[in-house]
């Protein structure tokens, strides 16, 4: 996992659930076949209600597979969300879809626990909590940079820097890359 991620921010509100992140009808695709796997990125965040798609203006789709962006469905690199991001189902397809779209960091006031563990254990993206509500301070499209080690978010558009919450014990899994690598390092499974 990269230690810093920089790019356009995508801002959403509170309680964005897994059905909004990747609607259930798409869960039938293979997560390994390249052609099908790509579809997860294309439909990532597609069921967020239009008014909430990319705050504050809304109506900004997160991903667009028709646009040519060197193969990445989304131009956004960091999702900035309110509370309870990823609530709902246990589908690992949710952090997977966001990561397939090309976005590797989500900063939220709080996460639903299964989404959080899936993001970390699968090594799909880094979920970082923010002690303050950033969705009023950052606009979709702002050029932001997240430093995972120092737990900071810098908004280069407004030249503001915000302190995020340290990852705590899961930092070891994030650093290892996935729970499997972590388990190997700890000798729980043979390497």
């Amino acid at each position, binding site marked *: 996992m990269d230690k810093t991620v920089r790019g356009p921010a995508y801002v959403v509100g509170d309680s964005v659930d897994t059905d909004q992140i990747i609607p259930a009808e798409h869960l039938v695709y293979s997560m390994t076949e390249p052609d099908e796997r790509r579809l997860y990125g294309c439909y990532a965040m597609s069921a967020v209600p239009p008014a909430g798609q990319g705050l504050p203006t809304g109506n900004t789709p997160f991903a667009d597979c028709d646009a040519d962006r060197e193969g990445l469905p989304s131009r956004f690199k960091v999702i900035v969300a309110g509370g309870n991001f990823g*609530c*709902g*189902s246990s589908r690992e397809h949710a952090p997977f879809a966001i990561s397939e779209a090309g976005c590797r960091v989500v900063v939220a006031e709080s996460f*639903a626990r299964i989404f959080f*563990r899936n993001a970390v254990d699968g090594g799909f993206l880094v979920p970082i909590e923010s002690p303050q509500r950033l969705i009023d301070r950052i606009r979709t499209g702002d050029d932001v940079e997240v430093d995972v080690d120092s737990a900071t978010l810098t908004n280069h558009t407004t030249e503001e820097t915000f302190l995020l919450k340290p990852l705590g014990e899961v930092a070891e899994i994030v650093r290892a890359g996935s729970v499997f690598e972590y388990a190997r390092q700890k000798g729980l499974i043979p390497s």
Partner: protein
Amino acid sequence: MTLTEKIIARHAGRDRVAPGEHVWIDIDVLMTHDVCGPPTIDIFKREFGEAARVWDKEKLVIMPDHYIFTANKHAHRNLEVLRAFASDQKLPHFYDAFSDRYKGVCHVGLAEEGFNRPGSTLIGTDSHTCTSGAFGLFSTGVGNTDAALIMGTGKLWVRVPETMRFVFEGTLPPYLMAKDLILSVIGDIGVDGATYRAMEFDGHAVYDLGMPERMTLTNMAIEAGGKNGIIAADDVTVAYVKERTDAAFEVLHSAPDARFHSEYRYDVSEMEPVVAKPHSPDNRATVSEVAGTRLDRCYIGSCTGGKLEDFVAAASILRGNEVRVDTYVVPASTEVDRALDTQQIDGVTLREIFERSGCKIGQSSCAACLGGPPDTFGRTHGTEVVISTTNRNFPGRMGSKSSSVFLASALTVAASALHGVISDPREVLV
């Protein structure tokens, strides 16, 4: 220690654990289904090798249930993947679709097949795995990666949760069901009110309930963000479990000096029928506040609202009457489905009651609870306003992003079906 802490400690090989600690625990049962099973198997093979064997065949349960009765080719491909894996690994607990063993919705199937054993740990690739906690065990949902790790090692890391305690006292009035209790709790604490925590349910009113109704309480712990829901086992639990398995189990309780994060007390005799309004399970209103809301559809089904008690309750209201709007009935399991033909009210079977009142009866599965492929039974396609016994009403959950879903008990849904508008069961119950 609380009940949840005790179970985690025993499975971590420790005398004690405290909330906030990270520990690795041994898993007694791992359950997966058709949506998350195939990607879990892919990860298992990627990490442990094509020829790897699962850690313990007896402890792996595969119950396809989500996308069964659909023409969708990807859904059928997923069933094939499960079949090949089960046969390759010689799995004894594979409940294949379109076979005599097919169960329907996994959380109800786990109970019926005796996999919910007090004192144990049960992990599933489905967020409503917390349902099993109604049997006094630790159960929670995980993603495919964690499940694949369990498949290879039998182990999972957990952060020991703090426990919130919900005590229900009093006698449950005939117009209320467990769904009213849990929707009230979620309305009180919010969809993230229990995030990372255990929710333990206790009190006489809880122990007056049968197992299926208790499962409705624990089923929706996840709708408050909870890690697990749990109810200590009693004689009712033990009788249910013994009828379905010879496996050993251990009944545990929270210690008298256990430390709880918080405690909420309810007198059920003073509670009212409630709904969760669109588009969130914590958007609670009393039925009387929303009575008269025009409906396009009623839906009775899912792991939380498609159990036998739900159909008995609905039939007691629908009996001898006709529904005014499309009403879909989906038994959660094949066992519940068969019971529709044996369970009677005044000599009439539940199936006959539903058929005569004009309901459409579907086959046991998740069906429209989570939308699914376009040809899914009961799925919404437009701007339908639905009242449903399911557990989630986020935008698009039942299919169409422009439909709106109210969540309610089977009694409230049945009363509403008779009038075509949201209706209070107290008006029709005699």
